[in-house]
């Protein structure tokens, strides 16, 4: 298993470490629900060293990415970030990612578990484009500070960059803990105000400790992947392998905002298949809340009467909504908010209700 620069720090903090996407990562330092509440009330710090970071340079960088990405990369303003996917010709994604648009280049952040597949895909399709694909994953790290107090805490460590000036899904560069030219983006996977920092491996531990120290008075705590999964589900954000995967396309997942059919974008891999799905979708991703104690889990089947109408992608206990929540694919005539369905637990049914996604967002609602 691979380890991030913070592996031993997590162990020393008493974290429970698990395998995630080929990495040995902290799932929790304390109670998962308390960690989720911490991010919703103050702020929490995440080690995202496992995620893939790829810098694409060269004169065709933007044109190349417009060929392999679903969104319109050339239209992203410099300094802005957009959600995107890499799709196969059948329209199903091999991964989803964030695209950072720079003046002459593009920076990509991809999922840990798919990094190798993504890189192979990029190299497979680079012929005819003048690009340099620089995988920085192993030599860099990434931290996220998420929550309402994140600006206040991070500002104590940042010079020559006004965090308040970095808009949602924008990025800038500043001096963080004395490290010049550090990439700072206002992004995250929690539905909260928050930032992500990109650092050389040699600096990750120092910055992590500095943030926890600066955040002591604000009750900033380290947060594991368990709470991260709850927070992203509350925020209606997809996770590859759950809401999207090799058989679940972005259109039916409600990710149209990351897919561009504009003619100016030119042809791109998966366009034709996704246009056909957009014209005639067969299912829809919805939110679910349950009226009972059981937590719907991935694969649990949904029924309306005797008719099977869908299945669960992700489920969690939501401390923010104080109920159990899930994302699920349902047939189109069950997608209306308020539809009463039942979730099956090995033959026992529990009532549940279709809800709007996201369940919670301080950034989108």
């Amino acid at each position: 298993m691979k380890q991030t620069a913070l592996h031993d720090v997590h162990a020393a903090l008493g974290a429970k470490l698990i395998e995630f996407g080929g990495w040995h990562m902290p799932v929790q330092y304390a109670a998962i629900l308390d960690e989720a509440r911490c991010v919703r009330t103050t702020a929490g710090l995440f080690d995202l060293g496992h995620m893939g970071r790829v810098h694409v340079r060269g004169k065709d960088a933007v044109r190349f990415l417009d060929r392999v990405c679903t969104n319109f990369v050339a239209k992203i303003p410099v300094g802005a970030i957009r959600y995107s996917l890499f799709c196969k010709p059948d329209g199903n994604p091999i991964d989803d990612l964030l695209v950072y648009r720079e003046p002459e280049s593009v920076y990509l952040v991809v999922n840990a578990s798919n990094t190798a597949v993504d890189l192979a895909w990029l190299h497979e399709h680079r012929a005819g484009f003048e690009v340099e694909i620089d995988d920085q994953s192993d030599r860099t790290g990434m931290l996220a500070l998420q929550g309402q107090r994140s600006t206040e805490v991070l500002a104590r460590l940042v010079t020559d960059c006004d965090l308040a000036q970095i808009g949602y899904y924008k990025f800038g560069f500043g001096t963080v803990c004395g490290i010049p030219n550090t990439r700072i983006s206002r992004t995250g996977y929690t539905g909260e105000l928050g930032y992500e920092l990109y650092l050389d491996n040699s600096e990750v531990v120092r910055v992590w400790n500095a943030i926890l120290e600066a955040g002591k008075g604000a009750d900033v705590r380290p947060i594991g992947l368990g709470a991260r999964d709850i927070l992203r589900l509350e925020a209606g954000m997809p996770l590859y392998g759950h809401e999207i995967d090799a058989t679940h396309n972005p259109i039916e997942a409600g990710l149209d905002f990351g897919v561009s059919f504009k003619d100016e974008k030119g042809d791109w891999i998966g366009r034709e298949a996704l246009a056909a799905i957009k014209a005639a979708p067969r299912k829809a991703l919805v939110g679910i809340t349950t009226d009972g104690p059981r937590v719907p889990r991935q694969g649990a089947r949904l029924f309306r009467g005797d008719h099977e109408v869908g299945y669960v992608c992700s489920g969690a206990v939501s401390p923010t909504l104080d109920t159990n929540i899930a994302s699920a694919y349902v047939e189109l005539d069950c997608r209306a908010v308020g539809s009463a369905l039942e979730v099956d637990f090995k033959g026992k049914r529990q009532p549940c209700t279709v809800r709007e996604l996201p369940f919670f967002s301080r950034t989108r609602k």
Partner: protein
Amino acid sequence: MRPNDRKYAQSHEWVKIDGDVAIVGITDFAVQELSNGNESDLVYCDLPEAGRTLAAGETFGEIESVKAVSDLYAPIAGEVLETNAAIEDHLEILSKDPWGAGWIIKMKPERKSLEGLMDAAEYEKFVASKKH
């Protein structure tokens, strides 16, 4: 050292004979694995109906934590006499007192012998081999 007045299954249940009744619960190790030491991480417990007949090794219920669902396995064969209703709404009892108040079901055992199960010392070794 864990209590020596009962036997242990590899699936981390314990069973204690009390007269004609077998009391079944889960070990501190099982609770720790489920909750990682945070009792609030336990969210749900599904218990069987009284009267149900269980074979040894049969699934009789589930315990759910924030992270995952785990099956409960009958350490012996027998009939379910009673379930501990108190834990359904107060799963923290399982962390506070897994050996006593945190019992899960009472059974009428098919046989009184508990052969094939581990004693406390054997279970100790078994658990030590699981830790990494």
